[in-house]
């Protein structure tokens, strides 16, 4: 576990010693504030809740989380430092987990910095705290899921651009598979059964379920399965193709 903490600490520091963290935070916080107010009709709805904020979060995270993830392994491959890291007394599993936890903690910080949103809602009305807290928990789990996808594609290529594009495509599919328009199309063309199966694999539907204020075990298991599955795939790729 010592190697895990060392990698985790180094990675988290690395975000803040390069412009990556600051650029990400500025862009994320801008859109996290802009979208609910401008497109989400935050004032027009006259409801003291965060549903306008959470509505746009999956799509926003699907694009921005791969930005955080793309450098994790692709940059190591590009610079050759992967050879330094994986010849230190540390297992590939600990290195994968260390990097993932550091990036997840960074995304947690980014989500915490959106606290002015719930504070604004609390100032304007009397919101129900349960759905807000559940929404944040769901957003953190969803960010972890997207991050695990990004980790996998980052391990696959030494090009950060390729890693980013592939991760955005997969994250986009995981979001849009559960959108009402996609579900309507699938139900009409392939039947309700297939649409239901596709929906069960969608981050959007599991996040929407948590956001309503109930953290169901099935939803938590879904997100943990997504995280563990993609991280395991990342581990296998690094183990098999570490010199690629």
């Amino acid at each position, binding site marked *: 576990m010592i190697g895990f903490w060392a990698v985790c600490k*180094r990675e988290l520091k690395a975000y803040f010693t390069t412009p990556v963290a600051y650029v990400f935070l500025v862009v994320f916080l801008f859109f996290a504030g802009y979208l609910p107010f401008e497109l989400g009709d935050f004032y027009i709805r006259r409801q003291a809740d965060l549903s306008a904020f959470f509505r746009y979060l999956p799509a926003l995270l699907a694009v921005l989380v791969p930005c955080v993830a793309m450098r994790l392994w692709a940059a190591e491959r590009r610079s050759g430092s992967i050879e330094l890291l994986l010849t230190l007394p540390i*297992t590939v599993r600990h290195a994968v987990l260390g990097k993932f936890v550091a990036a997840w903690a960074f995304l947690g910080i980014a989500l915490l910095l959106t606290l002015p949103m719930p504070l604004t809602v609390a100032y304007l009305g009397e919101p129900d705290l349960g759905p807000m807290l559940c929404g944040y928990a769901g957003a953190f789990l969803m960010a972890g899921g997207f991050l695990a996808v990004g980790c996998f594609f980052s391990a696959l290529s030494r090009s950060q651009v390729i890693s980013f594009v592939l991760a955005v495509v997969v994250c986009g599919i995981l979001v849009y598979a559960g959108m009402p328009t996609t579900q309507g199309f699938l139900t009409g063309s392939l039947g309700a059964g297939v649409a239901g199966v596709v929906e069960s694999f969608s981050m959007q539907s599991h996040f929407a379920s948590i956001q309503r204020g109930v953290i169901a075990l099935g939803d938590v298991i879904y997100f943990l399965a997504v995280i563990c599955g993609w991280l395991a795939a990342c581990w296998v790729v690094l183990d098999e193709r570490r010199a690629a």
Partner: protein
Amino acid sequence: MVVVERLRRAFGPILAVNDVSFAAEKGEVLGILGPNGAGKSTAMKMLTCFLPPDAGTASICGHDVRRTPIQARRSLGYVAENAPLYSEMTVAGFLKFICDVRRIGPKRRREAIDNVVETCSLGPVYHQTIETLSKGYQRRVALGQALIHDPPVLILDEPTDGLDPNQKHEVRKLIRTMSRDKCILISTHILEEVEAVCSRVIILDGGAVRADATPQKLKDDHGGDLTQVFRKITAGHTS
């Protein structure tokens, strides 16, 4: 201290290392010599557990690189080809990270870092970001991280490549000083380096061992200087 037994590694149809066996003991500086593409770096990557061998095995201080890779890595210090580092870190931050990974606790840390800073002359750049350092200093930082836990085995892949003559002299002097109580493996294609520091030489070509002897014995057996010996041994196999 280092035992290599019938190591083999292929990349698709290319056989990079083919049935390589040798051993090296404490006090030895073993030069692994060969033309570009001879399999030197691949052999070193397998010894440092970065690449798994297709067949055969190796052990570092009795730790098998396939069965107990973490223990094997604890016993060695490695400077990879081109000395990759985390360029956004400062030298101080980087050495502390290596101490964290290598379990050098707070009590021993100050002493370990002071030792490598002095040995590798890193004092003037200690608080500088690695990406702003000259190539010579970056090599020294890489050497510093390999020495920080005072390993019994050192594996250096082309340690003086790209250095100016003064820096080469310093690195070779350092290797000679350390060779008394360590087993050092150096991969190189620079023949003057072999003459300067190596007590024994292995010549690899086409992934296989073509010669294993002291530099003097090689010269005696084949006649001429090391360049001529190298040409004689490798010319016939170079593809």
